[in-house]
């Protein structure tokens, strides 16, 4: 049983693509082998910056013979039918067998597919895989048309058994498979011959290549933590960075360096962002002070000076980067302290937010006005909220945020603190962007939440006003995210807010546009509540009610309805209601009358009928009170009390009696049921 070894050797593969590519190679190749009849004992894939490798051991030397029988037409069938059968089977007449069947003599074709040697199958399948490899991004190079992630230089493809290794013959656009590869680019250049996977792995290690990425990552983490520990420090864990760095080197060499004393006072986020994003450095912190004092970089080679030159170089690069950051920080702090961030705010007047929506400064003024208006609903101080809104985006003009956009908000907080603004305002600078995604926290501080809400509402109404709504998968201004943010803020703070007046006041939305925006919110809300397990028909039943632009009230109603529907009373009430509604609708249609005159108890005949009258009469004030208090649980409870009398009524009474007066009165009674129930929720929308 031979072992298969494949190595695809290319120019440097992006770190983020390597692991997935190795998996894809393994899956596609092993699937194809099995499909072709070649089973195997085991397989493993590896990746380094320059190679993808697959080893398959215990592979069948050739695929098994396959015998297939096909039943054909009867011997006396028309010539055309027989010819067609021969064509399909790829045989001639004399190769067919005749067999006696119940219905007479029938032709049989016996097709034998001989087994094929593994090398042939591997060559065929590997070529297909290379030509159709699922790289996230691939490219052409030179004058060829082959695509790979970066230029593909060589293919090593051998089958090894007791007799030794044999190259699998194949040629893809001039790249001829062989049994050689290269070691480390700088530490061991030149090609060498490989006999098996074990030989490959061992020879690579001698040539300064650690084949296994997990082994490289472990070595990096071990060495980094050891070096940090020896200095009484600890490495800030970052699994993503570790995996990335392990994908940038074949021979990891960990070097720890110092961050210049000049930079230690920079905010830790600035240090970390700068080191990670630009340099792929790990941060090393002093556990006593929490400050980041050193960095760890991972080189791809050993040097005669034990990395001294490399470390000095990296340290210099970092110093230059951090000098920039420090320059920005110092300049920014001066503007924050001396001018209370005013120049930045002035500058925003010259920055267009959107051609049709004016400048950032104009937008901020709108947000400030809206924040003042919304503040009471969130128990925030209106003056503070308004001021916070005016300050919150000032850092967009700061040099640090221009350089590191990902630090927006956070820098605002530092600068607002330095400027001496109230802590609530400083917090709002950072928090008003939240929640950014479904997992991001909603700001809890009232001022922050108010500014966040005003910001998002202004964005939404603004883009609705200029008709730039999300369509399909396109949502360039992240409006869905903004709407979900509004919903989550309102829910978390239990903020009662009628949205329609806000929409119309913000950007003078027309009634139609405001209704459209509200229905966008309703759609987002449905998605949000579905995750909570609330049924869509329950939401629809509540959406049909008055005041559906108060999302908190809407949700409270939906939750209460969902709760009552899960009880036996609730479930039966829906049945009773639907029965009443169906009969009523049908009779109203037939008679061409709306039975809304009010029923009169004096025409009640059965005791059950009177009981229903009484129950409806008793429920009415309770429902009105509960509705007025927005106590939807109480309203639902009251509604549930109607279940028994309604059931009993239908049990005992026939609505459509011969007595026209009684019939009319009963239909009017059904109408009362309907109108009473509809005060709480539109149960017609509840699905059975």
């Amino acid at each position, binding site marked *: 049983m031979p072992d298969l070894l494949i190595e695809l050797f290319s120019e440097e593969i992006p770190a983020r693509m390597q692991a997935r590519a190795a998996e894809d190679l393994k899956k596609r190749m092993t699937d194809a082998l099995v499909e072709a009849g070649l089973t195997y004992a085991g397989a493993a894939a590896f990746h380094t910056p320059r190679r993808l490798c697959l080893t398959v051991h215990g592979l069948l030397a050739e695929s098994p013979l396959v015998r297939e029988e096909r039943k054909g037409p009867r011997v006396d069938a028309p010539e055309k039918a027989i010819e067609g059968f021969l064509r399909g089977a790829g045989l001639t007449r004399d190769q067919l067998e005749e067999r006696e069947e119940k219905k007479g003599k029938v032709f049989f074709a016996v097709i034998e597919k001989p087994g094929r040697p593994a090398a042939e199958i591997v060559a065929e399948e590997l070529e297909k895989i290379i030509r159709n490899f699922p790289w996230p991004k691939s490219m*052409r190079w*030179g004058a060829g048309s082959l695509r790979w992630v970066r230029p593909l230089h060589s293919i090593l493809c051998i089958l090894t058994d007791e007799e030794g290794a044999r190259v699998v013959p194949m040629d893809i656009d001039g790249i001829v498979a062989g049994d050689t590869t290269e070691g480390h680019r700088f530490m061991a*250049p030149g090609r060498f011959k490989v006999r098996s996977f074990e030989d490959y792995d061992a020879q690579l290690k001698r040539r300064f290549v650690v084949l296994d990425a997990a082994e490289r990552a472990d070595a990096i983490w071990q060495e980094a933590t050891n070096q940090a520990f020896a200095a009484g420090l600890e490495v800030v864990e970052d699994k993503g960075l570790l995996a990335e760095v392990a994908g940038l080197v074949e021979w990891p060499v960990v070097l720890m360096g110092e961050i210049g004393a000049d930079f230690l006072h920079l905010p830790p986020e600035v240090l970390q962002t700068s080191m990670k994003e*630009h340099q792929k450095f790990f941060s090393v912190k002093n556990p006593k002070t929490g400050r980041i004092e050193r960095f760890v970089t991972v080189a791809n080679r050993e040097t005669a000076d034990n990395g001294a030159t490399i470390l*000095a170089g990296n340290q210099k690069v970092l110093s*230059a*980067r951090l000098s920039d950051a420090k320059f920005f920080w110092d300049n920014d702090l001066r503007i924050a302290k001396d001018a209370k961030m005013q120049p930045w705010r002035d500058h925003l007047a010259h920055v267009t937010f959107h*051609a049709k929506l004016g400048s950032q400064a104009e937008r901020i003024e709108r947000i400030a006005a809206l924040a003042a208006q919304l503040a009471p609903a969130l128990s925030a101080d209106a003056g503070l909220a308004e001021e916070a809104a005016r300050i919150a985006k000032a850092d967009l003009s700061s040099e640090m945020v221009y350089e590191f956009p990902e630090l927006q908000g956070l820098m605002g907080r530092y600068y607002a603190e330095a400027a001496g603004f109230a802590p609530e305002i400083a917090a709002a600078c950072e928090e008003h962007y939240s929640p950014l995604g479904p997992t991001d926290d909603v700001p809890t501080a009232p001022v922050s939440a108010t500014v966040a809400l005003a910001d998002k509402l202004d964005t939404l109404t603004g883009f609705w006003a200029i008709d730039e709504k999300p369509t399909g998968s396109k949502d360039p201004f992240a409006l869905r995210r903004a709407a979900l943010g509004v919903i989550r803020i309102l829910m978390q703070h239990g903020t009662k807010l009628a949205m329609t007046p806000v929409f119309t006041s913000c950007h003078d939305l027309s009634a139609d546009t405001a209704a459209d925006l509200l229905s966008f919110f309703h759609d987002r809300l449905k998605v949000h509540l579905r995750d909570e397990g609330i049924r869509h028909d329950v939401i629809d039943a509540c959406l049909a009610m008055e005041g559906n632009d108060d999302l908190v009230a809407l949700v409270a109603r939906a939750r209460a309805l969902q709760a009552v529907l899960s009880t036996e009373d609730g479930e039966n009430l829906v049945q009773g209601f639907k029965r009443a509604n169906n009969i009523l609708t049908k009779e109203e249609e037939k008679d061409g009358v709306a039975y809304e005159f009010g029923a009169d108890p004096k025409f009640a005949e059965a005791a059950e009928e009177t009981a229903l009258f009484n129950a409806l009469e008793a429920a009415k004030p309770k429902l009105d009170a509960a509705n007025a208090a927005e106590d939807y649980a109480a309203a639902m409870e009251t509604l549930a009390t109607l279940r028994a009398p309604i059931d009993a009524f239908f049990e005992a009474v026939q609505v459509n009696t011969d007595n026209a007066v009684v019939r009319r009165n009963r239909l009017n009674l059904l109408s009362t049921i309907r109108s009473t129930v509809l005060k709480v929720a539109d149960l017609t929308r509840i699905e059975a």
Partner: protein
Amino acid sequence: MQPEEDLPGAAGRCGSGPLTLRTPARNQAPDPGRPRSVRYVKGMDMSETRIEKPRSFQEIILRLQAYWASKGCAVMQPYDMEVGAGTFHPATTLRSLGSKPWAAAYVQPSRRPTDGRYGENPNRLQHYYQYQVLIKPSPPDLQDLYLGSLQAIGIDMELHDIRFVEDDWESPTLGAWGLGWEVWCDGMEVSQFTYFQQVGGHDCHPVSGELTYGLERLAMYVLGIDHVMDMPYNDPQAPIALKYGDVFRQTEEEYSRWNFDVANTEVLLKHFEEAEAECEAILAQEHVDPKTGKRIVMAHPAYDQCIKASHLFNLLDARGVISVTERQAYIGRVRALAKKCADAFVQTEAGGWAPETAA
């Protein structure tokens, strides 16, 4: 607020610092246990030559010129217009289009108005130099050729950590993209290395390999200089030794002031629109010149106007009058011009057009 990297060859864009090449390294004997090939450069005269450390900015440029000339590139001169990067030179943008082989290397003065720091920042300049190499089709040993060029300017591979880190290049203004890397030397980006896939909306067949070196940064690193203005421009032993600052400090100051605060934005905006209109007017002409009766597609004059529009956009950007949303629209307008110029260039002989293939 993310500043769009609308221009390629960011080697001069990011404020990464210079590095010192350790001088003691020169005196160390090569480690006999290590392969020798990378300590020496083969190819310039076919013998193994010990590379001396260059002494000045211009010497680094001259060595790159000599190196790439020895590898068969046509050494071109800078394009005589204001551009944001070496890629804008027609020797790259236009010549990467079409089927004709091409190999060129040149220095290109590049202007990034927003990067002006009045000559005070050690690493940032609004005017700097890029070294640009473009070879079509990209040769299979382009990485090795590139590493050879680093050795030629005195970077010792045995002591430094050279890495190819993913960096896909996209130029929204040129309607171009490619895949490649930024090349790191000891954590510093010293070059961009790109295989062009598309330029001006056209698929590149064959593919060009493009190398862009940020010359100041690279030179500061090789020469061990901390502030760009302190870098020797010519030989420090020359009778009149000039530093980079002697040549450029004053102009950095002058242009920074003009770029940021003085440039008349209305005039710039008007020029932008004029360049745009002229570009389109040029391309709207009949292919056959009525005067000479010859077929003359004016791809290059049109492309000059596209370059102008692009630079005017950069100036407007530096004046801070273009918002995040507006800049997309401006970039789109320049891209539309670049695409039309590319369409025109492939209608010329240099762009692979031949009378017999024309329908």
